[in-house]
């Protein structure tokens, strides 16, 4: 009979090993899924994880896409990870991402067609402020009325989606667009455009921002008292109270930070790859970022690696869709399974598995 024995502190070795193991297990389970779908599993896995980077046929197009997709994922995930560490669950990053983009678009459209170097920085500020403000709604409701921030932040995603639809078909619609939904093409508006910084690298300002955010979060968590408070509140809430951590301030800080990062991600996406406000502007980055944060063990460096990997599944998924006629949803299932395996394997870092006779204490929850 197997018995779980709690480790005094999580195992460091397993901490590093479990994400890798989870990815491998997901590949196996994914292979089974592809067999069920009637595809060659080895070909599909190779197409998703290898070909986007190394095949001569596709790499020229898909390699730059890696940074394009990883940028927003990392930027959002690194913000979320701070809150997750403190036990503050902002799962509405998707909504904050949309609102950030809407605010940035509002700035760009207000200045259109003025040509000033200030437009782009203003848009970044507006995007961050929009995401921050949208995240402040659950944060303030939490601190003021003790309302569950998970439900509120998630429900606000649906509200943001409706706002997006209203903007695309109504108040932000392109006046020269012959009545089609969608705003002006902001990517083509020089002063507001988020251009690729080096040709064919896929790196735009969003990638730079993600890099700065990772650095900032790393310093915050490792070198600043606030980061210590965050970790303390997550690991020993009672000790944190005695240490004088103000829970309300922590909620406002964590939600605000993740909201601002998500809003910025929305802004860079709008002015770059997405080009304009349309009804289907949001592509689920806000939700995938939750997986990225967990896969990266809530650590900034881990999140960079996890973000690159999940960006790869996006690109590989598109490739598989195109080459093997694999349904787009298969990649979503793939990402979901990854999170399952990751959570399941966590047991290895938090517990020792012992072979023992069944005892009464093993039934304790």
């Amino acid at each position, binding site marked *: 009979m197997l018995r779980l024995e709690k480790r005094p502190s999580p195992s460091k070795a397993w901490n590093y090993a479990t994400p890798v193991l989870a990815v491998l297990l997901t590949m196996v389970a994914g292979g089974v899924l592809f067999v069920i779908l009637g595809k060659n599993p080895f070909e599909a896995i190779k197409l998703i994880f290898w070909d986007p980077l190394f095949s001569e046929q596709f790499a020229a197009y898909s390699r730059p896409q890696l940074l394009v997709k990883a940028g927003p994922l990392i930027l959002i995930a690194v913000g979320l990870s701070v809150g997750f560490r403190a036990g503050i669950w902002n799962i509405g990053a998707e909504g904050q991402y949309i609102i950030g983009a809407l605010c940035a678009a509002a700035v760009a459209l207000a200045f259109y067609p003025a040509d000033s170097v200030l437009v782009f920085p203003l848009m970044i500020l507006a995007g961050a402020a929009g995401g921050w403000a949208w995240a402040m709604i659950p944060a303030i409701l939490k601190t003021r*009325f003790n309302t569950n921030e998970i439900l509120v932040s998630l429900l606000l995603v649906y509200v943001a989606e409706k706002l997006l639809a209203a903007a695309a078909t109504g108040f932000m619609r392109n006046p020269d667009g012959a009545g089609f939904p969608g705003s002006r093409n902001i990517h083509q508006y020089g002063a507001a455009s988020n251009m690729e910084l080096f040709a064919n690298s896929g790196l735009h300002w969003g990638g730079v921002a993600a890099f700065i955010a990772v650095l900032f979060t790393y310093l915050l968590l490792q070198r600043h008292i606030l980061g210590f408070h965050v970790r303390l509140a997550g690991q020993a*809430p009672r000790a*944190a*109270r005695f240490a004088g951590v103000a829970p309300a301030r922590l909620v406002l800080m964590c939600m605000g930070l993740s909201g601002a990062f998500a809003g910025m991600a929305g802004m860079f996406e709008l002015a770059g790859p997405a080009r304009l406000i349309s009804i289907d502007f949001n592509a689920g980055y806000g939700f995938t970022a939750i997986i990225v944060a967990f896969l990266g063990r809530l650590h900034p460096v881990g999140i960079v690696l996890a973000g690159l990997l999940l960006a790869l599944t996006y690109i590989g998924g598109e490739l598989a869709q195109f080459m093997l006629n694999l349904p787009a949803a298969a990649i979503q299932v793939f990402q979901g399974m990854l*999170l399952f395996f990751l959570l399941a394997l966590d047991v290895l870092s*938090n517990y020792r598995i012992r072979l023992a006779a069944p005892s009464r204490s093993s039934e304790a929850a």
Partner: protein
Amino acid sequence: MDFGAINPVVLVASLMVAATPILLAAIGELVVEKAGVLNLGVEGMMITGAVSGFAVAVTTGSPALGMLAAIVAGAALSLIFAVLTQVLMANQVASGLALTLFGLGFSALLGQSFVGIVPPRTEKLNFGFLSDLPVVGRILFSHDILVYASILLTAAVWYWLTYTRSGRVLRAVGENHDSAHALGYKVKRVRILAIAFGGACAGLGGAYLSLVRVPQWTEGMTAGAGWIALALVVFASWRPWRALLGAYLFGGITVLQLNLQAAGFQIPVEYLSMSPYLITILVLVVMSSSRARTTLSAPGRWVGPSMPPGDPGITKRPCPENREYVHETQRTSGHLGRRAGSRRADRLGRAGPSRR
């Protein structure tokens, strides 16, 4: 616009239909939370139920078989959550989210070949002349079996939790799992069964959505119904009859805004369709700000978000009857505090079955 186009009798009849899926999911989640578990995967289980119910109903031509398949699918998916949280001790919030993300992808994959198909009709119950009665006939005697089944389920869960031995065991497990364990109850087994029941209910609710309410399959068709069901449990303060009331209230709002859209109300459709979500948030705020009332039926060990498990701050201290104390603990513990609920655990312990 024309308010005259909105017929109140039809409105009430259709709000019952609109409320049924969230009521089913909420009743299931209520039992799960009463057992001391928070499953945030309701949305994922609902949509999995919706697609599997739809697929089976279309292929076999029988809505009843579809509903059955949805129950099985919802329960099966919830068992993943049960294994993760009860056997492998994974974080409940993250596991619930994983369930939702997986369910949304899985349903989209499964439902691909079913887009745009009309499912077999679910027949309404035949009440004979009763259905022809004015007003009452339309409201009370014109529905399919699941509308009545969901009300019966509410009654059954209420009776079971309040008056039966096994219901009390479930509550004891939720109130204080250490005491329940010491009394010899199988904490994990009870919780796993509760989670499976929650999954089955959510699955059935989803199938009602795709087979009766809409009736069609589209990707992501639950559109937050699972999250609204979760909010509904908070609104209901973990009481089954209040969940029924809440579900009908939300159903009413949904139907009313649809009616306003149809009546050509001067507000763009997008803003009207925001209203169910906004009102859900509003209700959550109202319910959570008046905590003194809600704590009375909240499960003691309900591991709420931002209330990390194992925080002994409040539950270990005796809780006198006056409300001052509750306020005080709220102030000192801030958001990290947990619901004061030990008093009920004591009462339950006494009222519960004797071990001899």
